[in-house]
């Protein structure tokens, strides 16, 4: 294992004179980690801690006729049950915190379940074993329903409806389409004149985030009518927001503590443990832990989504990729979680790190009767990158080119137009390719080694983005009625046009600091070139983002009314379909007003005296110490 820093590359853009930055400082928390003393959520010990386990559906898809928990309720160690009716607002979607999508998932299913492992009832007991025994004693009368597991079968007209909120088995985008579109240039025309058409289908497998510490939370009554919750969450305020919404409890009553977590990889964003633990603590007035065991983590916990991809490329004999069409299916499982968002993230990523003048994609967030999928390292990108990079090798083989040289030829460069209509900047793909080829002794031609991310972008064929062809195919519900194929341009819908060269030169940029003294001195931020450093961004209108300069030799792209500053490019660009207004965004909803539905916790009366020091200041009065300290 050898690590080298190529400080020689991009040296003229960096100032490396720092005291701390770039130094291999020892981690602040490493001593605690390697001696086993860092306090993770499960290291907080409470006297009389109760445990939660859930009754889960054994069926892919089933209606709940009735639940008989009378035996379970009377079993030794069982404190009480949590029924769906105990949850003040038993419907949520994770991204409601940023107003994206509709509430579609109950914390505990009341009427029907849509995947194997979906919880319908929670048991609170004095031990994990007692909770598990009680769970096994609950009798559910299931009416098994037809199910669908395959993403493309789920789009067919007679597929069972997985999620009642989205009866077409697809997330609704922009209140208009059953998929997210990307349309850039005219891929059909480019395919028709390409020397080669290369097609491929790729399948990403669902995998488990597999953190060493499984997901969990401990909630306990705190003083002053508050609840403290120690949690393994990856997103503290997501978890507070979700808990506050489901339990209709103001965030002022919630004291969440986390921050030291045993691996997450995306699997600890969903925030299912905190609301159940907090509710259980509210209902019993006692400290309660809800933590998955490994089997639950692997099969009831959300994995990375399975993704299916179809790619169709138009390629010229010299290796230039002139068209690329994607059809993508994200397997959301039974509920949305974050998949709808992953689809849009993926759309912004296409066609990969390459400059292709004609690109189209249809990506679907599909509901199937499987465990909901969620974020995982590389979310929205890993699957399609697998597809793209396998496909690039197929293209290289077809045109008889070295695979790395093919990538360098098509690589995006500073000033190139990306398919989402923003200019590329700060590119370094070509240099990465060159460095690794040298390193592994993979010989590239002198021409390939001479290329640079800094030169040639936005010129010649790279800038010749033709007029874009749009379509209105795949309106919500249409596919289920007509059996329309999912691929771009598959139907005969109304075509529209977006003028060539339409783009915006407003890059994503951070807000300006509130006050001048929050602006760091530019000379201390490590940039040699004036790049509009983050702490002092220029006002948008003055931001010097140059459109690609036409090369001296080549004429500017045909009909290129490059969106200049102030010119509203979007609305005027369409001749057929008016663009959807940019979704207005309201800040995350404030926690709902305190409601009286949440039962007051009963005074805590321990059956046995505390064993260890209890009255540590600033600590819940029920805490009895921390493990291994």
């Amino acid at each position, binding site marked *: 294992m050898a690590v080298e820093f190529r400080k020689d590359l991009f040296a003229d853009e960096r100032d490396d004179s720092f005291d701390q930055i770039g130094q291999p400082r020892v981690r602040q928390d490493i001593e605690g980690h390697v001696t086993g003393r860092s306090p993770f959520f499960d290291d907080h010990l409470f006297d009389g801690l109760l445990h939660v386990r859930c009754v889960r559906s054994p069926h892919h898809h089933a209606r709940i006729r009735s639940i008989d928990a009378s035996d379970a309720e009377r079993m030794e160690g069982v404190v009480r049950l949590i029924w769906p009716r105990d949850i003040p607002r038993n419907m949520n979607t994770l991204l409601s915190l940023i107003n994206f999508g509709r509430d579609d998932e109950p914390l505990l299913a009341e009427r029907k379940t849509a995947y194997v492992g979906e919880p319908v009832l929670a048991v609170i007991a004095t031990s994990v074993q007692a909770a598990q025994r009680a769970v096994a004693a609950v009798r559910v009368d299931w009416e098994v329903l037809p199910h669908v597991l395959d993403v493309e079968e789920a789009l067919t007209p007679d597929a069972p409806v997985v999620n009642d909120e989205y009866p077409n088995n697809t997330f609704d985008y922009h209140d208009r389409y059953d998929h997210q579109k990307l349309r850039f240039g005219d891929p059909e025309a480019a395919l028709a004149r390409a020397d080669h058409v290369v097609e491929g289908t790729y399948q990403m497998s669902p995998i488990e985030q597999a953190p060493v510490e499984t997901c969990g939370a401990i909630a306990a009554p705190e003083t002053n009518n508050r609840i403290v919750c120690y949690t393994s969450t990856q997103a503290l305020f*997501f978890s507070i927001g979700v808990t506050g919404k489901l339990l209709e409890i103001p965030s002022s009553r919630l004291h969440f503590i986390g921050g030291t977590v045993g691996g997450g990889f995306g699997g600890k964003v969903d925030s299912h443990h905190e609301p159940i633990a907090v509710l259980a603590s509210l209902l019993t007035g006692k400290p309660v832990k809800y933590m998955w065991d490994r089997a639950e983590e692997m099969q009831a916990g959300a994995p990375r989504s399975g993704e299916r991809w179809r790619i169709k490329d138009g390629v010229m004999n010299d290796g230039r990729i002139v068209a690329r069409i994607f059809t993508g299916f994200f397997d959301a499982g039974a509920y949305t979680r974050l998949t709808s968002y992953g689809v849009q993230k993926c759309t912004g990523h296409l066609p990969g*790190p390459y400059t292709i003048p004609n690109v189209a994609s249809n990506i679907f967030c599909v509901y199937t009767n499987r465990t909901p999928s969620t974020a995982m390292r590389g979310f929205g990108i890993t699957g399609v990158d697998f597809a793209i990079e396998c496909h690039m090798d197929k293209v290289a083989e077809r045109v008889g080119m070295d695979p790395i040289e093919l990538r360098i030829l098509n690589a995006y460069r500073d000033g190139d137009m990306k398919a989402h209509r923003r200019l590329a900047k700060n590119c370094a793909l070509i240099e990465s390719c060159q460095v690794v080829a040298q390193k592994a002794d993979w010989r590239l031609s002198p021409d390939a080694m001479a290329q640079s991310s800094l030169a040639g972008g936005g010129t010649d064929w790279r800038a010749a983005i033709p007029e874009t062809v749009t379509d209105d195919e795949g309106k919500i519900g249409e596919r289920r009625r007509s059996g329309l194929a999912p691929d771009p341009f598959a139907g005969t819908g109304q075509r529209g046009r977006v003028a060539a060269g339409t783009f915006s030169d407003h890059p994503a940029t951070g807000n300006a600091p509130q006050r001048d003294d929050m602006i760091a001195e530019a000379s201390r931020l490590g940039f040699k070139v004036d790049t509009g450093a983050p702490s002092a961004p220029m006002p948008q209108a003055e931001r010097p983002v140059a459109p690609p300069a036409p090369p001296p030799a080549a004429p500017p792209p045909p009909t290129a009314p490059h969106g200049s500053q102030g010119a509203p490019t979007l609305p005027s660009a369409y001749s057929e379909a008016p663009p959807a207004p940019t979704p207005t965004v309201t800040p995350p909803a404030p926690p709902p007003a305190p409601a009286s539905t949440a039962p007051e916790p009963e005074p805590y009366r321990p059956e046995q005296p505390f064993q260890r020091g209890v009255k540590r200041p600033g600590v819940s009065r029920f805490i009895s110490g921390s493990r291994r300290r």
Partner: protein
Amino acid sequence: MAVHKGRGFACINYPIGMNLGGDPSQALVHSTPDGKFKVTLSSIDLGQGIKSVGRQIAAETLGIPIEDVYVDTADSDTGPHDMGSFASRGTHRMGNAIIRAASEARAQMLEAAAEKLEVDASDLTTDGKGNIHVKNVPSRSITVEETAQAAQFEQGRTLAGRGIFLVPLSGVDADTGEMTPVSCFAHAALIIDVEVDDETGEVEVLQINSAYEVGRALNPKLVEQQLIGGAWMGVSHALYETTEPYYPDRSHGPQDFNTYLMPGPGEIAPHHISILERPAPDAPFGGKGPGEMCANPVLPAVANAVYNAVGVRCDSLPITPEKVLRGIRANGGARPGGRA
């Protein structure tokens, strides 16, 4: 029957931060009476090291030794809002918020020192060792500790700062997908050498060579840890792992690490890394998040190497011995591509 060597390539880029913005992070910085600074966050440290990176960013911005900074996270009673540790956003968003908070605190610190030294604050600078001095006149100085004491006990001044960093939320066009996604991208290119046994279908990763472009390695050891671990996750993803071995069929789902296949220590391959740094204009000191992207190029590079070794295209993950053998059989035998 033979073992065939193969070599595969892949390259990728990766967006840093929540794709369409709308994901603020906040930081608070304040000084104790003796000039030690606390950084209060709600970030989650999953092992990636945000506490340590945040500490370095704060110390660098304040201009004081790293020992004099401590990062406290995440207690919702004290830490201000942060969206969370995901989407490669921690270093980028929180790092920028910490720079702002620490800049405000630094400005207060220099004001307090200026009052003590009877000079203008703009003439002062820090030496990174706990002293504040007049620019180009190191002898005319005051310690950070004395400054903090003077500020709090004589001048009635806080040495504190607040910072928020937000890339405002933007929308996606329904018909064209036009959008303003993230503001910077990390890059990677990777060459993998494998051996494929045409009798058992087993794939062994022999060696990984990689180039990762991370903007700036704020802490080179943390970057190294991310890249080595992440690439290994990619190998595991490519060759072993799945919760649903017969996807979309749900049968045979693993319930523990005995049946959830992963490579063991014996399968760890040498990984030679080159790190490139092209600083991103809006990132803290130019640093992009290396954490998520490092697994991505490994998956296709392994698939491409297997194809190069035996001529079997495994377009569906994971690349199990069963799939490799079935492919070899369908081809009527191994077809080495001869790159390695």
